[in-house]
């Protein structure tokens, strides 16, 4: 029997342990290859006119993917090596040299890797079209794009694989070289012995861990977060939460379980014997990997939740900056006709095309304001400073087809997408006095509108909407240069937007301007790429964290097999044993998931201020539910593996 025969035999025997690893590996290669193809394929980026955004996005994605694959593969490989230490020991016992054994393992590794590589590339070629169609759909591109085999993508993937195989083979070589025969035989039993934790130390550290996490959460959403040290604060929160998580896994959970166990006074029953006891026993050793898994989960969840929210609320977000479908404004630099004149041309072409619309000239007053309120964020330094404020007439806005909050008499509604994310409900109401010419008027600013009412001119984004008579007073007092007019168009049927956009761009063609439709297309293609990349990266992360947990549980099941045998001999039924095991799995999978969810919820909450348009709970909830469901599939697999182990135990 040659060495290669031996390799094939042992691979056939170990296929049961390998298949999930193999699958995850193939998935990684496929994804890597597809991202790489999309990154290099000139046709795609050229025809979709997204080259810059896309290429950099996919480049970042391939780097991240490479990192996660490297971590995952080395980790899984180490686990398998430990599991097979007996086998490795046996080979040496029957006289194979360490050199031969490591050569054998390396051949096996290369074969496995090459298999995954070939299947992965094949699958990548097959499904890359599907991916491309999905991507094009997400970015709202209509039309066909062909995709060809990319040599550059192939060689990049091959390089990734070469690195993976070299790294893992090297680790195998070192491992075989370093171990003594006797250790190899003992490896399975070389479990850390259970220890009684020191009560005082673990109580203190346990509480500190929890406190760090909670403090991190609180701080991230407190008023102390947004100041000149924002970046430093963010790093601090990150450190607090990660160290806190580690301590919770390493100490807190064990400490709480110890208290529970002590209260049971020896009577922990079968369920406890199969869940609480082994959990406590392994928590210390597993703390590091559980922290990594939790952090990765939180990262994935925050990333996909954020991207999905962005995609989901693209329309609303674009409306914030582009409230009217089309708009004509004064533009000094271009030496072009007055807005009213251009609006006339546009109105005519809309009429010719038979598109119904609202048209309204909106004249606003440029005033100088002073704000006086108790609850402005420090970072704004608004106290005693003057601010440019544009004042609008609610009646005019309403006539243009824009729906905004109605101001009461003597009150103003505040619109400012540049500031709104910093202000909270507590900021309102506040007082403002506006200076227009020689006239000074006081307003009570009652509430905040959710967007601009025009798209912020002259670098001024602060806008007040007031009642008609207040507006007239300010307008009459204002010098002519403080009065500006824009013309807003809003279509009655939004399906006409695309056609109207074409007409709009034809007005004074040398001088392009953005309309809602174009901004939306631009934004949706951007967030479409984001959701595409984060979605699939998230899947890759999920597949690797889930597999790592599965592998860990697989080896725990093997280690505990003897206990199951004993329990079966003592007369416990498989169904009774499985109850305890299910409870343990609920902890093993549930705690990282719940903590990951909590972390990501707070992370998203603290960045949700960037979503001016309001509610992102729905998209975040959808992303989280989908993630949790896929994650739970791994838990189900694991329980299945345990059931088989328990059944075979007697």
């Amino acid at each position, binding site marked *: 029997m040659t060495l290669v025969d031996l390799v094939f035999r042992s691979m056939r025997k170990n296929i049961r342990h390998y298949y999930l690893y193999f699958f995850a590996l193939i998935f990684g290669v496929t994804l890597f290859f597809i991202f790489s193809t999309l990154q290099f394929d000139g046709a795609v980026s050229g025809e979709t006119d997204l080259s810059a955004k896309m290429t950099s996005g996919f480049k970042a994605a391939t780097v991240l993917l490479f990192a996660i694959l490297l971590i995952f593969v080395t980790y899984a490989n180490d686990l398998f090596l430990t599991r097979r230490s007996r086998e490795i020991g046996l080979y040496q016992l029957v006289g194979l040299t360490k050199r031969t054994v490591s050569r054998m393992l390396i051949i096996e590794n290369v074969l496995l890797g090459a298999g995954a590589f070939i299947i992965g590339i094949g699958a990548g070629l097959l499904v890359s079209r599907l991916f491309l169609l999905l991507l094009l759909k997400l970015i709202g591109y209509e039309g066909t794009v062909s995709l060809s085999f990319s040599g550059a993508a192939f060689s990049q993937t091959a390089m990734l694989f070469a690195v993976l195989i070299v790294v893992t083979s090297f680790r195998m070589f070192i491992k075989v070289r370093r171990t003594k025969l006797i250790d190899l035989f003992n490896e399975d039993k070389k479990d850390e*012995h*259970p220890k009684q934790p020191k009560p005082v130390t673990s109580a203190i550290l346990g509480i500190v861990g929890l406190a760090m996490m909670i403090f991190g959460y609180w701080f991230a959403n407190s008023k102390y977060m947004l100041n000149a040290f924002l970046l430093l604060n963010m790093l601090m929160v990150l450190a607090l939460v990660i160290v806190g998580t580690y301590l919770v896994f390493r100490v807190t959970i064990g400490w709480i379980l110890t208290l529970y166990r002590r209260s049971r006074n*020896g009577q922990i029953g*079968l369920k406890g*014997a199969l869940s609480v006891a082994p959990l406590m*026993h392994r928590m210390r050793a597993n703390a590091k990997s559980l922290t990594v898994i939790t952090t990765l989960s939180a990262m994935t969840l925050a990333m996909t939740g954020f991207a999905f929210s962005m995609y989901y609320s693209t329309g609303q977000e674009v409306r914030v900056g582009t409230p009217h479908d089309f708009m004509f404004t004064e533009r000094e630099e271009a030496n072009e006709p007055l807005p009213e004149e251009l609006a006339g041309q546009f109105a005519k072409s809309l009429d010719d095309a038979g598109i119904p619309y609202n048209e309204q000239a909106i004249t606003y007053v440029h005033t100088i304001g002073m704000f006086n309120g108790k609850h402005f964020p420090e970072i704004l330094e608004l106290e005693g400073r003057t601010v440019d404020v544009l004042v609008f007439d609610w009646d005019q806005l309403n006539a243009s087809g824009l729906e905004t909050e109605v101001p009461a008499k003597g009150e103003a509604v505040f619109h400012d997408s540049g500031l709104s994310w910093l202000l909270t409900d507590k900021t309102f109401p506040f007082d403002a006095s506006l200076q227009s010419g020689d006239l000074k008027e006081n307003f009570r600013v009652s509430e905040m509108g959710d967007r601009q009412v025009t798209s912020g001119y002259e670098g001024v984004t602060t806008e007040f909407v007031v009642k008609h008579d207040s507006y007239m007073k300010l307008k009459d007092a204002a010098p002519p240069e403080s009065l500006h007019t824009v013309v807003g168009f809003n279509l009655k049927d939004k399906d006409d937007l695309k056609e109207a956009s074409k007409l709009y761009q034809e007005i004074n063609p040398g001088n392009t301007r953005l309309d809602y439709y174009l901004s939306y297309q631009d934004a949706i293609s951007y967030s479409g790429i984001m959701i595409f990349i984060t979605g699939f990266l998230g899947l890759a992360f999920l597949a690797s964290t889930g597999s790592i947990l599965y592998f860990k549980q697989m080896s725990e099941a093997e280690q505990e097999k003897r206990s199951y045998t004993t329990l079966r*001999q003592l*007369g416990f039924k498989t169904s*009774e044993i499985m109850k305890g095991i299910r409870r343990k799995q609920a902890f093993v999978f549930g705690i990282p998931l719940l903590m990951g969810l909590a972390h990501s919820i707070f992370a998203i909450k603290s960045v949700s201020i960037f979503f001016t348009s309001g509610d992102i709970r729905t998209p975040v909830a959808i992303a989280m539910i989908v993630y949790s469901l896929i994650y739970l599939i791994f838990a189900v697999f694991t329980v299945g593996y345990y059931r088989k182990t328990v059944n075979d135990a007697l």
Partner: protein
Amino acid sequence: MQQDGLILEAHGVRKSFGSKQNAQEVLKGIDLRVKEGEFVGIMGPSGAGKTTLLNVLATIDRPTSGAIRIGGQETSKMKDAQLSTFRRDKLGFIFQDYNLLDTLTVKENILLPASLGGLSKKAAEAQFQDIAGILGITDHASKYPHEISGGQKQRTSAARALINEPSMVFADEPTGALDSKSAASLLGTLEDINHKRGVTIMMVTHDPVASSYCSRVVFLKDGALYSELYRGDKSPQAFFQDILNVQAVLGGDRVDAR
């Protein structure tokens, strides 16, 4: 409970391993009766089928043919789930390598079988104190198995076997991993429990010293009963001599005698 105080009855028990074409018969029709309160030792050379017999009688393994009754119940006809419940309620086990759960303390290990029985917490605690007292492991109750000696581990294992007040205890080489002093002390305790609490014990051993504590020793050879010895009123020393004599004829394990 049953006539003549019989606790275990085996008729024509056979056990084969391997496929049908290539079956190897390990037990070749064994008939055995054990009375309530007996301390039976099973001896025989390696490969005689001692452990197989114990496993089959103890319902851990099924016989290929033959009938086994324990406490009047036909165990060979029970389903798996019934067998599990029967083992838990009626039988106790002591193994050569203790088979304690590493992650449980001594007390938790001992109380494990009581967890699914109807025993109240208070009753379980009282039972634990009682048995741990007899076996002398009360002081080690909150220690983990790796923190105590082999003898103490085996006492823990014995306590676990006794916690549900079983009708019968099966012990497979309980002294196999112990030094002679711990072995003697454990056997003395088992004998004590057998006398005072009237627990029926069946013990597989290849050690004539261990079997000299029994009230009866059954010898197996090549899967069949070879002979048996009753201790009667003999002193342990005299019984030990008798056992050695049978072993000499039987051949095999003599060299193992300590």
